[in-house]
């Protein structure tokens, strides 16, 4: 009895002539993800990717967990591969699924037969396997409408597969089918979630972090690296650029009106980010803003921020409540790290009463008191790069 993993691809199959490209990317990503665990065969057939371990000592629990984190996989399950023989299928159903069936109260059997040479039709297979299970587990009830466990028998070209309920996969599209974009990440709750959400749509991430030592510490940067490491578990390798931002922030503090500190800082960050993003062939910026969450995230402030850049700015959290954002951050495991209490560049020099409806002309005028180009250039020139890999 050989155990394999079946991964179901969803949206990918809708992509017409590009389907092969998407599928190839997905297979490549699954292979890369599983590589540390040992050798696997990863093959696509129909809308399913079949993942077969080539070594008996491979930890299948871990392998299944990893497959569940690959974008593009809609659902996945562990299955038992057997000979295309009805007796072998029956035996596999009660042996391989023994623990699951023992714990369940109700079940049904679903069959799919793509090998039309197999002597039994799908309804027959379900009937035969179903009654055999019912006999073997007398306490188990048959429930065709709302079963706790659905035993699935798939008779395919190479073999038959028996499995129980599939688990939901990470969904989305395979990376980097969506292209490359740069996430502005501070270390709070929102930006890692925004990064995750865009990676889910197939975006390959580059990260930009602003550091203002000694106002911010090495620890704040370390925290961002930790967050990116968690995100990279889904998103894959991430290049992180840390921008030395102290001079610009000090200059804002020195020369600009207090109620505009934050908005001007955001505008500077966008300018710097676009330069870095262009250098690294990113086509968009990503931020973790949610409309109205804080003063710099009002529509007025966002409009005033965006006039400084020409690239599209993605804000995947724009319509989400804090509670919804926290729920995602808990799901992807960044929440606890995000709560670590270090100063970041957004909390340095926070004005007492930030302006919530800044007028662009007013902001432009306030900025004009200083020549920023050199400072921006210097910041871009002196970025420090770290490459973050999944742990």
């Amino acid at each position, binding site marked *: 009895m050989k155990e394999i993993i079946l991964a179901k691809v969803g949206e990918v199959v809708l992509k017409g002539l590009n389907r092969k490209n998407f599928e190839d990317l997905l297979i490549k990503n699954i292979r890369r993800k599983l590589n540390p665990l040992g050798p696997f065969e990863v093959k696509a057939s129909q809308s399913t990717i079949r993942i077969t371990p080539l070594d008996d000592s491979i*930890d299948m*629990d*871990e392998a299944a967990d990893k497959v569940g984190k690959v974008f593009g996989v809609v659902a996945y399950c562990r299955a038992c591969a057997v000979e295309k023989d009805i007796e072998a299928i029956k035996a596999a159903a009660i042996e391989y699924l023994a*623990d699951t069936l023992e*714990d369940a109260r109700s079940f049904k059997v679903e069959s799919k037969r793509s090998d039309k040479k197999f002597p039994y039709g799908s309804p027959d297979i379900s009937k035969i396997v179903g009654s055999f299970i019912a006999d073997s587990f007398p306490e188990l009830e048959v429930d065709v409408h709302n079963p706790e466990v659905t035993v699935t028998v798939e008779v395919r070209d190479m073999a038959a597969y028996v499995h129980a309920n599939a688990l939901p996969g990470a969904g989305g599209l395979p990376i980097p089918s969506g292209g490359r974009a740069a996430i502005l990440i501070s270390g709070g709750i929102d930006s890692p979630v925004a990064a995750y959400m865009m990676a889910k749509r197939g975006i390959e991430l580059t990260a930009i972090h602003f550091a203002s030592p000694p106002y911010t*510490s*090495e*620890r704040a940067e*370390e925290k961002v690296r930790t967050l990116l490491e968690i995100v990279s578990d889904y998103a894959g390798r991430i290049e992180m650029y840390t921008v030395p931002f102290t001079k610009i922030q000090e200059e804002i503090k020195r020369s600009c009106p207090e109620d505009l500190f934050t908005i001007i800082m955001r505008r500077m960050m966008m300018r710097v980010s676009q330069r870095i993003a262009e250098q690294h062939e990113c086509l968009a910026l990503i931020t973790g803003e949610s409309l109205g969450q804080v003063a710099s995230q009002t529509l007025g402030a966002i409009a005033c921020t965006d006039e400084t850049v020409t690239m599209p700015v993605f804000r995947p959290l724009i319509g989400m409540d804090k509670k919804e954002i926290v729920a995602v951050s808990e799901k992807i*495991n960044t929440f*606890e790290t995000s709560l670590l209490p270090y100063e970041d560049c957004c909390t340095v020099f926070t004005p007492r009463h930030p302006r919530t409806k800044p007028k662009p002309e007013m902001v432009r005028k306030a900025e004009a008191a200083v020549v920023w180009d050199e400072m921006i250039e210097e910041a871009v020139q002196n970025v420090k790069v770290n490459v973050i890999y999944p*742990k």
Partner: protein
Amino acid sequence: MEVYLDNSATTRVSPRAAEAMMKIIGSVYGNPSSLHAKGLEAERSLRAARRTVADSIGSDESEIIFTSGGTEANNLAVLGAARARRKRGNKIVTTAFEHSSVFEACKELESEGFEVVYIEPDENGSISSDAFSQAIDGNTILVSAMYVNNELGTILPVERIQRIIKKKNAPALFHCDAVQGYGKLPIKVKKLGCDLLTVSAHKIHGPKGCGALFIKKGVHIKPLVYGGEQERKIRPGTEALPLICGFAAACEELEDIPGRLGAITQLRDYTLSKLEAIGGVVRNSPQDALPYIINVSAVGVRSETMLHFLENKEIYVSSGSACSKGKKSHVLSAMKLEDKRIDSALRISFSCDSTKEEADALAAAVKEGMETLVKAYG
């Protein structure tokens, strides 16, 4: 030749663990909570160590709480879980042969008004999953069971427990004391289905004074001590970084656990065949026990007499369990063994470094003891 066969009591610290500790003591002296560079350096060491320990049981690093050892981790798990779940039920299910740090914590909980069920081992020194199934009910808030019994090496069917809890719809957390199985059996917290799991450094060639409690993500327990923010406020106090790093170094040496298990099984079989060939020596451990532990009785010679006789030859074993010197073993009593067999029980426990030569020396010495020592019983 020194023959140390009491590895279930404690192990020699490995050179690598000792070196790791000396490095931290000598140079990484910062407080991991300090904001400056010395603090950050210490925090990085702490984090690396936490990750290593987490990997050794297949958990996430955020699920590891470092403690002063197995005893504290067991107390924290049992008392902390029961007190956090007081409103959801009143019953605790455990076994009658737990380590005293679980047993005494349960006694304390009884005095706080909890009902505790102690499942007795059967005549083979084992406990079936059915016994847990009978004991666990909808009022059960905590099940605490050891993975491997420290006296006999019995392996308990712990991977069934979470399923029983689910089936009974019990609001129970499952705590597993894995101190004796750690590093000897492959341990994956997900596979074992535990919410809490105790491990200790000094049983795997790490330092004494350091252990860890795995607390599954989302599981809340009450702390035993209060103070700072360390260890997610569940175990505050400045972290014992040298010991923790020694623990991690010992973890890194836990290679090829199934391979070692195979080698020790051979050594166990060899040792047993030698010992059982001696008149009066009988085995107490069940056939399917963890091979790192052998419990035998050299019938006629009191445990302590034989222990001191062997000690004179630089051979170190244990009488019953080292934690309950002088007391009659509860486990052996539960197996309904004759008194003279209980009184003469010896525990021989291997580490991955144990050798055939050591087994030969032990067998020769036991044989000499049986032939020359004055028997306590006729």
